[in-house]
């Protein structure tokens, strides 16, 4: 079981992988037009910004000496027009890249969320929820800027650099080569730190994820923490995680900040070399204007490189988030609709297991060749020791897992070939874990059938005798509840969850320890409701209360992944086997 907790880093490949960037193109492609538009607007705006120096030069060289007021004003008017065009272009660019960027965020996040809906339980059980959350929310926000503005700016800088190179080459080829001489040094530096830099950012992302995971879990479990007076101990763990995250960030960012000074110093060295070589070797073949222009271009040549190195930093950072996003997207979906899956027709309710073998982990079978058939309308109780496989059988009926071998069929249709939706929507499952969504009580009941009217929801609540406590609440059915708040007691939650199941009007009903926290009086009433509910429905019940078990049409004693005994209460009692032992021992316990 590869499980993860808050202070365990997730391992990732250490080599830089451009694959992640290429894969992100899939999301960018859709907004190609917007991004190309943004790029063109930026280019236009850059060109406009070059016109002002030209105007200044003309003013000093021509208009002022000639006192040409009229030409000055005309040119001035035109320049102000370009200023306005520039502002409009920048506006359009900002709009285009904002739409593209936010759309990409929305798309990636949607894909992640949709994928989450298909992942197996094990994925959620095996890591802190905060680590999943941080991918869907925070990381996605972090990548959008590079994928839009970053990309555009990189292109702009490259164009910019190209133009400067052309200018330089047209002026003086040999001095241009001197300017280029600085590049290999820079490249070597970037190359040599690439690995550490990437590790540093991966580490930073890991530490951030650990921090958030612990924070999220702490908030949800605050009640327990306070009950055990562990606040200061936890605060120390939080402090440790925050400290690790701070150190990891500072380490990574120091590497990033080291790049700029290198380019700056190189720029100075190149400047030095141009003057030196220009004077020492090329004195006779060089005009002063060219030398001065070359130094100024050399400086300008390094500006895009400095900017590019910033984007490079941003890219390394983005890739460390992207790889986690894609890692989640690549998480295999084990249970899914097969090719050509069929929609299960309205079901009668016959459930059959034929030689079913199942294992959560390889070579540790939990169910060993289980076979049985439940007739439509039959109620079946599953009893047996903890870990014998009762819950597993229930999970397989809803196809929460894939079988190793054998067939589970409903009305003779192998459910492995049916769509999940058509199976589960005809099945009502009341789990041990009740979950209350934030919202009103009535919304929580309606979760069972989305098109139910308020009246139908209230009727369902009445049938499970939840109405008594709901109507006493300050806002009745519209009282706001959520998972963590203690507005509802455990018994009340079970009643709500029961009403939810009842409302869904399933053909097959599964009750997994559904009434354990409900008081006896209410339970007697609820039992009546259950009996009514079980009528004409196939049902599977896991319970500890004898009365619930006894009334079932058939009882299956599950032991060590096999059906050890099967039959109705009377038959099993006469047999004086495992069930008999269980039953009598429970009695003596009373």
């Amino acid at each position, binding site marked *: 079981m590869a499980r993860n907790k808050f202070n365990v880093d997730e391992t990732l490949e250490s080599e830089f992988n451009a694959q992640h960037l290429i894969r992100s193109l899939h999301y960018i492609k859709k907004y190609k037009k917007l991004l190309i538009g943004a790029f063109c607007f930026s280019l236009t705006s850059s060109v406009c910004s070059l016109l002002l120096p030209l105007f200044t030069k003309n003013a000093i060289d021509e208009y002022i000496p000639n006192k040409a007021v009229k030409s000055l004003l005309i040119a001035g008017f035109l320049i102000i027009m370009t200023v306005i065009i520039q502002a409009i272009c920048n506006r359009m660019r900002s709009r285009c890249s904002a739409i593209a960027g936010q759309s990409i965020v929305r798309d990636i996040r949607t894909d992640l969320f949709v994928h989450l809906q298909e992942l197996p339980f094990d994925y959620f059980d095996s890591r802190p929820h905060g680590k999943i959350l941080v991918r869907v929310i925070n990381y996605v926000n972090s990548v959008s800027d590079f994928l839009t503005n970053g990309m555009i700016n990189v292109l702009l800088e490259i164009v910019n650099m190209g133009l400067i190179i052309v200018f330089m080459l047209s002026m003086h080829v040999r001095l241009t080569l001197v300017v280029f001489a600085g590049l290999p040094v820079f490249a070597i530096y970037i190359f040599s730190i690439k690995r550490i830099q990437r590790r540093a950012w991966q580490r930073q992302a890991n530490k951030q994820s650990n921090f958030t995971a612990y*924070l999220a879990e702490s908030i949800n479990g605050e009640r327990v923490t306070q009950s055990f007076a562990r606040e200061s101990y936890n605060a120390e763990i939080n402090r440790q995680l925050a400290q690790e995250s701070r150190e990891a960030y500072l380490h990574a960012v120091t590497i990033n900040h080291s790049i700029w000074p290198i380019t700056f110093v190189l720029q100075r060295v190149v400047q030095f070399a141009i003057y030196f070589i220009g004077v020492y070797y090329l004195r006779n073949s060089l005009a002063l204007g060219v030398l001065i222009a070359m130094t100024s271009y050399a400086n300008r040549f390094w500006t895009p490189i400095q900017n590019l190195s910033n984007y490079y930093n941003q890219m390394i950072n983005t890739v460390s988030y992207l790889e986690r996003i894609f890692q989640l997207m690549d998480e295999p979906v084990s249970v899914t609709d097969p090719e050509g899956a069929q929609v299960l027709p309205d079901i009668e309710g016959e459930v059959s297991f034929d030689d079913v073998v199942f294992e959560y982990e390889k070579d540790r079978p939990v169910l060993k060749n289980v076979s049985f058939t439940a007739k439509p309308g039959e109620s079946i109780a599953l009893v047996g020791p903890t870990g014998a496989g009762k819950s597993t059988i229930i999970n397989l009926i809803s196809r929460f897992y894939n079988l190793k071998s054998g067939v589970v069929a409903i009305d003779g249709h192998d459910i492995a070939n049916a769509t999940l939706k058509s199976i589960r929507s005809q099945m009502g499952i009341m789990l041990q874990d009740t979950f209350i969504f934030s919202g009103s009580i009535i919304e929580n009941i309606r979760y069972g059938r989305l098109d139910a009217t308020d009246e139908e929801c209230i009727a369902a609540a009445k049938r499970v005798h939840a109405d008594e406590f709901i109507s006493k609440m300050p806002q009745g059915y519209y009282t706001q509840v959520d998972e963590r708040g203690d507005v509802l007691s455990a018994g009340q939650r079970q009643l709500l969850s029961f009403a939810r199941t009842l409302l869904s009007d399933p053909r097959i009903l599964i009750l997994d320890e559904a009434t354990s926290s409900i008081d006896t009086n209410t339970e007697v009433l609820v039992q009546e409701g259950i009996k009514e509910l079980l009528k004409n429905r196939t049902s599977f019940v896991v319970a500890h209360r004898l009365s619930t078990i006894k009334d079932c049409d058939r009882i299956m004693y599950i032991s060590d992944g096999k059906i050890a005994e099967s039959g109705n209460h009377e038959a099993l009692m006469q047999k004086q086997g495992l069930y008999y032992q269980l039953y009598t021992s429970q009695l003596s316990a009373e």
Partner: protein
Amino acid sequence: MQEARWIFSFLGKSKYKLYAAYVMSLLFNGLLAANTVLISRIADDVLTPMFENLKIPTSEVMQQMLPLLFLTLGIGLVAALFRFLSNIFREQASQKVTFDLRNALYQKLGLQTRDFFLSNRSGDLINKCSGDVDVCNHFLCWVSFSMLDSIIMLVIVLIVFFSVSWKFTLCELALAPIAGITALRMGKVVRPIFGEARQQLSRLNTVVQENIAGNRVVRAFAREPFEIEKFHKENDQYFDLQLKANKTWVTYSPILETVANTINATAVIVGSLLAIAGQISVGQLVIFTGMSWMLNSPMVQLGFLINDFQRFRVSCERVRELYDSSVEIKSPEKPVEMEEIKGDVDFDHATLTFDGNPILTDINMHIPAGSTIGIMGPTGSGKSTLFNLLTRFVDVRSGSVKVDGIDVRLFDLNQLRRNIGIALQDVFLFSDTVESNIAYGCPDTPVENVYASAEDADADGFVRKLPDGYDTIVGERGMGLSGGQKQRLALARALAMNAPILILDDTTSAVDLETEQYIQGRLRARAKKATTLIVAQRISSVKNADCIYILENGKITESGTHKELLEKKGYYYHIYQIQQGNISAAESEVQQ
């Protein structure tokens, strides 16, 4: 600016680091300027004569030029170092603030109770402690620097301009008020949008978080499409708000940009006109046009800064809201010192109301140290709330709850809770190893105690069968374990505390009777007998208690031993009849 002051107050000694970073950033800019001057001197004093007079020997030129060139190199090195250090210092200083804020907020969360968590969704709290703190960090580290740079640039350029020509400067500044008004207006419009966007992110966070936590229910009801639709709604809303913020930006920023760039253009136009009129010299015009970018760039920056500043204000306010949130239940300033708690528990006319509705009315219970009491009653009658009074998750409205004869409100909160081992009805396990979960209340306890507690809770057997035994990591909320298993771990967790008072809130509802009886036997055999308070639905769970209380509608309606209560023929007797009815029917069946 109030927000900025608040965030700066977290710097402590690190403020010197931040100041040093500011100074070095200024020095860096100064060195850049010095370099420009040096280069122009090389051009004017060395190169120009050299190219004009080819007779000057190269060696002589080099002799003149090399020292200057080396100086530029030296300045470059120092400047690079300054900038590097400035960056590192500002990162360190603002990370320090982030670190302190994260810790302070975390501790604050630990002090909050019921009402606070009812009105704050966890998605929102997570965002405040992570995302919003990061925005504050960004402000300290970058935005405040850009602001300072812009201000200094403006001051320098204005001094130079006014000293050269006040007429020209005034012409230049004529448009500035438009920029100022636009920027202020933008700030005002954009701020509520940023606020909404942050809240929307929290809502989105909540939807995703609940979907993850409730994934079993979602699957069971095949509600994936509904969840996706719910998600789309919030995701789209967030998208819309982000674009709305951008809409504001693209409405106002072009005005700012046009004004700023027009200043550049008019500098040339007005300057040229003044030069033609003979008001200023061409040299002065060169100064103006050369420096007008310093006037223009702060104005372009102004838009970004206002935007970032408003974003910061919104986040800072949210962080402060949590930071300043009032704590309702806290330790008294001078708590009662207690070496050891014996475990007497008294409810003395304890009464509690929420929103005017009575929850508990006039509760009187005297529970001597070492005894066991049982509490039964209908769902929602206030049984768990009783314990909340004892552990101070809520305080009584009137009356009192006492431990060893002392009002619980007089104890140090932590000391009080450390003396109460509690197994909550709603089992929450942490995604950590089984061992750490059992030792949750006493992290330094020896493993033997963990094993012993697990044995007493009948958890040892199944734990050892887990893939990694006690080192198996259980899922958040104990997902992946059955209800009975979770309850037994929660019980072991409470037992491991070895506290003088033990609360079992419906702890054995999901375990079978045989197991329950085993557990009860183990509890009785424990060396140090704790005062035990048991809430249960089954008669069997409370039958052997020294006293059983029946709680209905927040009032104690019956109390006494099992025998006494049966004689009263009230609620208890009724429940007994129902449960016994099933049993005796079964018994007669077995005998047949």
